[in-house]
């Protein structure tokens, strides 16, 4: 799995480079040629040492419905949760499955 930061290190560009961001978004959003799946890491805003933990897609989707995210550690409601979510990317499930069936 790669965050924007990790991908930018591989590409040797700044993570905030707009062309780089657009390129990653393209790879993750093209319906018929989707290379990457996007998921999220949750960073506890009250814990500066937080290393981030993967949070299920369903919980992120639920947060957008309700307006708050449930902290996976202590269950409290986190409002303004977009500042706690760091996107990360994995090879698209369909591609991974295809590779495994080809072996």
């Amino acid at each position, binding site marked *: 799995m790669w*965050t*924007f*930061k990790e991908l930018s290190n591989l590409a040797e560009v700044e*993570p*905030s480079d*707009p062309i780089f*961001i*657009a390129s990653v*978004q*393209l790879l*993750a*959003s*093209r*319906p018929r040629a989707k290379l990457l799946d*996007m998921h*999220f*890491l949750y*960073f506890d805003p009250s814990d500066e040492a937080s290393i*981030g933990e993967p949070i299920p*897609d369903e919980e*992120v*989707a639920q947060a*957008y419905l309700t307006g708050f995210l449930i902290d996976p550690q202590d269950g409290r409601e986190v409002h*303004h949760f*977009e*500042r*706690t*979510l*760091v*996107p990360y990317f994995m090879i698209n499930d369909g591609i991974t499955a295809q590779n495994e069936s080809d072996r």
Partner: protein
Amino acid sequence: MNLTVEMLRQAARNPVETLNLEILMWKFERPSYSKWVGQLERFLLHITSLIGTKRDRLKGLSEDALTSIFDISFQAINISSSAKAVNGNVDLAIEYEDYMWLGEAKIAHSVSVIYGGYLQLTSRYTTGMLGQTSGGMLLYCQDERADVTIAGWKAALSKQVSVSNVQPGPTDLSFRSSDMCAATGATLDILHLAVPLHHEPQEELRKLSPASSMAARKARDEVKARNKAAK
């Protein structure tokens, strides 16, 4: 530095970058139909603005060719867009899951031509189903200034369609109206957007008048005289 969703939103510099991020987030936050339409409209306005900067090269293109610019632009950001059969052959159909936005394009030669397109959009193509009640008129203004065309069409529509409820649009070269879908009775929301393509450069046609040349000479002489006196 790890980029959060909030930081990505703040980093988006234009409607293209904003919409790129929105599309990625649709998996997690399915937009309401009105929000989705708003995102499409901002992108349409952006493309219209870009077309305006190239009107010297685009003037004279056919209606289909001009509409293809919008079509290709939407496809380039991974939004399903095409001319397709929806109760007939609609010029621009933009779709996301069960949402649909239909666009009717016309080269705005006259308000009669535009009205014909308007009737096609509102009475023939529009489904009037849930999540499919918004659309737009793309008016390619080649013959005259876009503000003149949009003002004329706005006045004609207000007079012709009593329920049009004409309202200001997101720019001076646009307006909004409503109508009723004949098939379902649903209220249709229509964005009317003038695309400025009128291009009539004046540099070969207009010369500086003798009076203007004389005024320039007089002003120059006065400054020279002041400079000389100051020495």
